[in-house]
């Protein structure tokens, strides 16, 4: 088996798909994996691929024109997922897409499509969850939020919060993948890769509570009806992993 590996970002992933595709080694003899590869196997050959803008463009064009722009957007979205097999799955969905056209994503009779849908659903839930539980702290003129997602979804939160607060300065920091959405008042957001030092400095901002955080806690405690207390229900609806930065829970 030939195993193509790359860093977990869209450009590298598309380049990796390009190399695998054009290798002519036969789809059955190829596997694609994200780095870091946890467990190396003895009899497989590993081929590392770097991001290459020419390859990226070729794959983008092929998918957009021969399948459909919608199909491309679906693949690009799922590339944020943390699942180990996401890259391999993208590759196989693409093969099906070239064969059946954009409808391929509805053909749940294929295990690869079923898997794609599963990943999509989980990823969508993760994005929705952080859309709900992101908490901003006011630091001077800027609102800063920290979060710790499993998948690299900061880029999906960018447009959501830009639409919500178009005329505010805000930063959304992914503490795990060390990247941030940076939004200046009335401008378009951009993505920013953080150095360890920058991250450490940003992390301090979370310590700063203001009076509205305290009032939010008052509100949160008061709004529950004591006669209806149902901890189990609360735990079910609000899982522990999502609570870490939700100030009202701490």
């Amino acid at each position, binding site marked *: 088996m030939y195993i193509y590996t790359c860093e977990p970002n869209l450009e590298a992933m598309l380049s990796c798909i390009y190399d695998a595709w054009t290798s002519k080694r036969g789809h059955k003899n190829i596997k694609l994996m994200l780095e870091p590869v946890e467990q190396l196997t003895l009899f497989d050959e590993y081929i590392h691929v770097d991001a290459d803008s020419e390859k990226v463009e070729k794959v983008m064009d092929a998918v957009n024109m021969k399948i459909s722009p919608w199909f491309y957007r679906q693949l690009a979205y799922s590339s944020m997922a943390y699942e180990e097999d996401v890259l391999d799955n993208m590759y196989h969905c693409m093969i099906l897409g070239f064969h059946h056209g954009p*409808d391929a994503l*509805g*053909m*749940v*009779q294929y295990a690869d499509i*079923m898997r794609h*849908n*599963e990943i999509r659903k989980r990823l969508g839930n993760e994005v929705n969850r952080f*859309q*709900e*539980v*992101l*908490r*901003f*702290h*006011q630091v001077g003129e800027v*609102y800063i*939020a920290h979060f710790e997602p499993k998948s690299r979804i900061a880029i999906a939160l960018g447009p959501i*919060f*830009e*639409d*919500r*607060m*178009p*005329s*505010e300065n805000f930063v959304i920091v992914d503490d795990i993948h060390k990247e941030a959405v940076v939004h200046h008042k*009335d401008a378009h957001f951009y993505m920013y890769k953080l150095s360890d030092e920058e991250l450490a400095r940003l992390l301090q901002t979370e310590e700063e509570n203001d*009076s*509205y*955080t*305290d*009032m*939010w806690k*008052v*509100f*949160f*405690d*008061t*709004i*529950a*009806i*004591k*006669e*209806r*207390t*149902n*901890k*189990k*229900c*609360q735990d*079910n*609806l*609000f899982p522990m992993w999502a609570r870490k930065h*939700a100030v*009202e*829970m701490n």
Partner: protein
Amino acid sequence: MFEIQEELSLDKKLEILSDAAKYDVACTSSGVDRRGQKGMLGNSCAAGVCHTFAADGRCVSLLKILMTNHCIYDCKYCKNRISNDVPRATFSPEEICNLTIEFYKRNYIEGLFLSSGIIQNPNYTMEKMCEALRMLRMEYHFNGYIHVKAIPGASEELLYSAGLLADRISINMELPTQASLEKLAPNKTMTNIIRPMNQISQTIASHRLAIGKSAKMERAGINQKLTHSIFGNTVDKIEGGSSLFLPAERKDRDLRRPFAAAGQSTQMIIGATDETDLELIRTTQSLYQSFDLKRVFYSGYIPINEDDSLPEIGTPVPLLREHRLYQADWLMRYYGFFAEELLSEKNPFFDQKLDPKCNWAIHHLENFPVEINKAPEEVLLRVPGIGPTSVKKIVSARRYGNVNFEMLKKMHVMLKRAQYFITCNGKMLYRTPIEENFIRNQLTDTEKVSVMKIEGQTVQYKQMSLFSDFGLKAGG
């Protein structure tokens, strides 16, 4: 009346006025999609966003507060009634605006839910509420979600303003009959509730038509596929009085906002009076049909006041009953059921042990099993364990080949419930008899866990007490 107000800090006021507002169940921020705009704060998402879950498991989406908990009325079930000795407070419009804006920017909430006790008279109260909302929209440029309570008895002009400033407007019916109202809310009348409800619904419809939409509110997509549903034909209309539209007040008309784009809703208290479930869901159905309400909410009565005409303090909140009513409400809104199919004069209460859809199915076994690969959408929708999303997935998958049980599982069909009612390619999942008692027992067992979840801590799992019941030591 407001003498102590001066001394209260903002967080104390917030504590008093959110505590007083918490019995209103509506907290959704749903019903309208609105993009953000430069220079303003906020947008709105039709699906609604829950920002957190309180200790009672309820979703928190809006800053739910009263403008004031002073009240000249004496509704027996209410904590804020004039005859109660409770701490009172009033927010200024600026305080309401600041709290909303600052909470919103921190992503705590989707918007504001503003209700109020009645000060001086309904008009004065509604005017003050509109003043706060006007300030929030015009001076603070808030473009997020607002749900406002209409004060029964307020003038038509004020109701019109409220509808233009907010996204959703609601008038609480609280009790479904005039007799119950007289008993528990002596200052309110059915006419004072129904009349504005009707006017609001007509005004929403005319605003919708004016911008090229259909007169009636959008319903879940699945309803378009149903030939038969409560939203189809409007029979059984509640009489809403003669005057149709609310007159426009000049200053707020210039806002150029749609009138209550997220529609109108109401709430009924469950268990304070002796209406049957059938009466409640029939009323619900006619409210949807007559006034095109977006939602009807139920609120299990929580005894807070000592009163001969009310359940005693300490009476458990009828959570399971409330849950069954919500399930029935969903069946009417999304599954094409009518109230009369779910309950009858002979059987006017829901079976607490079984959800209403399963209950319907086991009384109509002649319709089952249905073949997943052939049945039309409205038939699939009536199968227990299959919801609108699964129906969509099944129908989409059928276009490319056969669907089997494995695929159903992946589509999140609840086979535990559905298996007794379906075949895939002519075969049932297991060889089970299609027989009422057998299926009832199986389903009641499946339902036990969810019943326990709803009743929270009051019910414990049987297995857990097994050891102590028999004096055994765990692991010993």
